Structure formats: C-alpha cells, structure tokens
C-alpha cells in the first residue's frame, strides 16, 4: 500500500499487516517509520491513495468499522472546556450508548483509570498523566473489541505504566484485541503476544514474540588470548572484549560456537566458559532495523526513521 500526503512526501509505502483477534500486538518501529500513519489510516483519519484496510472485515472508510474500536491517540488532547464526566458523556453519545449504560460505564471506566474523584474537574486542569488516563477511559468506554493505542505509555509515571499494563492485560483476558505502538521495548516484550516491526513504511518482520526471538546470543569466556588467535576469530565474532582477568568473545552467529571453541582449544588448551542467552527484543529490534536499512541501501545514521536515531528514544 502506498500513501502520499499533499506535499508528495511518501508517508507510508508497502505495509501489509494482519492482526489476529484476542491478542496484544506491539507495533514497533523507529521514529518516522509510519506507525502513527498506519493507525490513523486504520481509523479513517487518513485516506490511502492506494491499497485497502479493514477492521473486523469492515473497510475503514465505512464509519461502522469504528463502532467496536477504542482509540487513544499519541499526546492526547481532549475537549478542554468539558469536565471529565461530560467528556465521557459526549463520547458515550457518539458511541450510541443508551443513557443507563453510559452512566454505568462512565463510572466504571473512571474508577478503572483512577479518576473517579476528578469527574467534575475540567480537562484543561489535567496533567499529562491524567490526560493519558482519561484518554484510556474514553477508549475503553464501550468495551470495544479492538483497542488501538498510539504510544500509550508516554507521559505515565512508573505506577501509571504498571496500571496501564494491568488494564491492557485484563482486556486480553476478556478476549479483546489490543494493538499498540510503543518505543518502550521492555514493556512490549513483557506484554505482547505478537509484534510487528515497521521500518520506512515496510514491515520488516512480524509474528509471535516467542517464535521471533529463538536466536541465542552466544558468548565465550577465556582467561588468555593470543593476538594470532584473535585474528583467526575475527570472521566468527561481532566483538572481543577484555574485562578484568578474562576475555569475552561475542559470536556473530550461534552456529559459530563449535568452530570458535575448536580454534581456542587449538591455540591454548584452556577452559572455555560458554554463555547462551535469548536475544532481547531490543537487540532483535536494532538488528532487524539495521539489516533492513542495509538491505534497502539506507544509512543507519540518516535523520528520519534511522535505527541510530531511535536509540535515543528507547530507554
């Protein structure tokens, strides 16, 4: 699919994405990759110049596709002149909820996000974290089947983040689908069943998190290292570092383990400590983005959508 804005800037290019119901899906990508554009496209806020998109089988240009969807935008801003209760009342009406259900759900969602005491407070008086909470309340008001959240963890303190994660996990246990974009990869790794990584408008990789991260990062530790051994190991390693009284050899591929061990034994018959660990989502993310940029002839240091730039945004 390809979307272009009025200035003919390529906003998104060839995304193809499918999300299964009942899961938490983490939508990842560097700044400028097209995550927010994808979300806006799914919600009918941006019109594609080419391609199609569906929500629960309904085309996104049809407003009925949004009947069972809750959305929390990035850096939310709501009707500042309304009180929290009035704003949710407005959302309930737009969602065609009847008066009794509206009243019940407003009370429930305010309690869920910890804003019951603020029901009569004007939204203009809300802090960044409280705006995020009221945003979540409006997104969950009609108990939607799909919850779409654009950077929901931004602006929340550690307690807020913990509560939000708990709410999102509870949505999953109720059989709802949660689709969210985030730069906080540790949280994504903790919560998501599936992830998709987007780079410069194209899906780099996607699927079940457990299946995506099978690669083991292997490091070898030895007490001594001769310069000629180091040279011979170069082709098999990504880095060799010296820490205190031992050398650490980071293998570029787990499959190089036996060959590297044989070389080390041959050079100096010493004990080798082998450490194997699963690759973190963060490592996986950087590797995928960098490989994708290399493959497509982009620099990893370019301004928009670069993996290097995004490292600054990822804690």
């Amino acid at each position, binding site marked *: 699919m390809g979307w272009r804005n009025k200035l003919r800037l390529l906003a998104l290019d060839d995304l193809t994405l499918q999300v299964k119901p009942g899961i938490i899906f983490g939508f990842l990508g560097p700044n400028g990759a097209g995550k927010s554009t994808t979300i806006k496209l799914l919600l009918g806020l941006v019109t594609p110049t080419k391609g199609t998109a569906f929500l629960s089988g309904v085309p996104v240009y049809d*407003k009925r596709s949004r009947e069972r969807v809750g959305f929390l935008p990035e850096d939310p801003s709501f009707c500042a002149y309304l009180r929290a209760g009035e704003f949710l009342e407005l959302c309930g009406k*737009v969602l065609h909820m009847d008066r009794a259900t509206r009243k019940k759900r407003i009370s429930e969602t305010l309690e869920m996000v910890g804003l019951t005491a603020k029901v009569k407070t004007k939204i203009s008086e809300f802090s960044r974290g409280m705006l995020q909470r009221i945003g979540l309340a409006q997104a969950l008001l009609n108990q939607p089947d799909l919850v779409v959240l654009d950077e929901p963890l931004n602006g929340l303190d550690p307690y807020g983040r913990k509560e939000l994660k708990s709410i999102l996990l509870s949505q999953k246990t109720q059989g709802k689908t949660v689709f969210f974009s985030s730069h906080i990869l540790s949280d994504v790794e903790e919560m998501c069943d599936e992830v998709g990584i987007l780079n410069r408008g194209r899906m780099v990789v996607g699927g079940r998190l457990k299946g995506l991260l099978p690669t083991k990062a292997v490091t070898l530790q030895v007490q001594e290292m001769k310069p000629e051994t180091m040279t011979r190991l170069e082709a098999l390693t990504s880095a060799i570092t010296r820490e205190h009284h031992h050398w650490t050899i980071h293998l570029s591929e787990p499959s190089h383990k036996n060959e590297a061990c044989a070389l080390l034994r041959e050079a100096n018959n010493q004990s080798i400590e082998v450490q194997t660990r699963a690759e973190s989502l963060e490592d996986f993310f950087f590797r995928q983005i960098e490989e994708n940029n290399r493959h497509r002839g982009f620099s990893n240091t370019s301004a928009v959508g670069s993996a290097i730039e995004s490292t600054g945004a990822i804690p």
Partner: protein
Amino acid sequence: MYDLMTICKTTYTRVLRMRSLYVLLASVLVLVGAAHLYDELSGGREKELMYDTGAALLSLVGLLTALMVAFDIARDLREKVVMTLLSKPLGRSQYLLGKFSGVVWIGTINLIILTLGMLLILYWEQGFARWDFLKLAFSAWGTMVLTTAVGVLFASFFAELPAVILTVAVYAIGHGTEVLYQNNSIFSQLLFSVMANYGLLDFKDALGSNLYISWKLIVWSVVYALVYSSALLSLANIIFHRRDLA
C-alpha cells in the same frame, strides 16, 4: 441526526463557556442601559441613534458569534481533539454540521435576547412598538447564518487566525459587492459572481430611515442566505472529507 445533535449541544456548551461571549453581552447591556443618555449625545436625534445602535449591535453580535465557529473547528483540528471524536463512529459531515448548528443555535439565542431587549428599550423610550425592528433582526439572523457557513468553510482547511481573518474579509467585501459589480475588470466580475452578497441582507439604512420594506423581501433575502450557506457547507464538507487528519 443524533450524532449531529450531540456535536451541536457540545458546541453550544463550549461557546457558552467562552468568557468572550459574556464580555460581548455585558458590553451590549451597557450600551442598551445607556439609552437614556442618547438624547444628550445625539442633539435631538436620539430615536434614530437608538435604532441605529440596536441595528449595529445585531450585526456585531451576529458576526462575533459566527466567528466562534472558525475558532472552534480550527482549534479542534490544531489540538487534534477531532481525531478522538472521528475515531468513533461519527461521520465528518455530522461533525461539521454539528459545529455549524451549535453556533447558529447560540447565535439565534443571542439575537433573540438582543432583539427583545431592544424592542423593550425602544418602546420605553419612544412610547410605541417598533415592530420593524423584527425585520432587521430576521435579516441579521440570515447574515449570522451565512457568516457561520463562511467560517465553517475556512476553518475546514485553515488554522484559526487565517480562518477568522478570511471570514471577516468575506463579510466586509460581501457588504460592498456593488462596488465589484460597477468595476469592469474580469477579476471583479468573477468575484462578484461568487462572493456572498451581504448587501441583499442589509436593511439597516432603509429601515432606520423609516422606509417600508416588505416581509416578503426580507424572507427572500434570508432564503438566499440559507441557500448560499448550504452551498458553502457542501463545499466545506467535500474539503473536510478529503482532508487528512494527521
């Protein structure tokens, strides 16, 4: 229709909570309350002055209320409030028409209050009812509806300030379309043919000079305003539908 009414009520609430509205109404009350001073200020023409003040206030209140729609829509777009609302099953047309209706609603209430107040003052000061002031009020209502539609059109693709400036510009130029008509340049003629003709709705001078203007003429001028407003709203709707809310 339900969605449209929901947005309409919210817009009404928003405008009601704008401090500027109360400053405006307070100024009107001061001007009306100072009516007894007119005979000292006008050199014996207090009746005309009072009537003209009432007519000017109708225009001013109508214009300022109408401008609120330009502020309101453009601000919703700038602050991305509209993204939250339109991510729900709310059509863009309903949003736009709801905003328009909300401002027209509060503008109507403002004009009714002002008209009743002026009728009372005129009766009190002049000793007889000036029912022709109702004609003035009705044409002012048509002007307010038309200006609101102009505001909606500009707010659908401009930021707050340009939208308000352009709305005021159309209001000002629209009151002088006969100048465009008299100028033979192609640009002037083209502008005349597409520009809202506010002159058709302006009966202040005629009614202020006690000339007879029939209700039929007043009604037709308001019908013109409504038809022109519908065209502007349709255009705004097309533009807003094509607009990316990014």
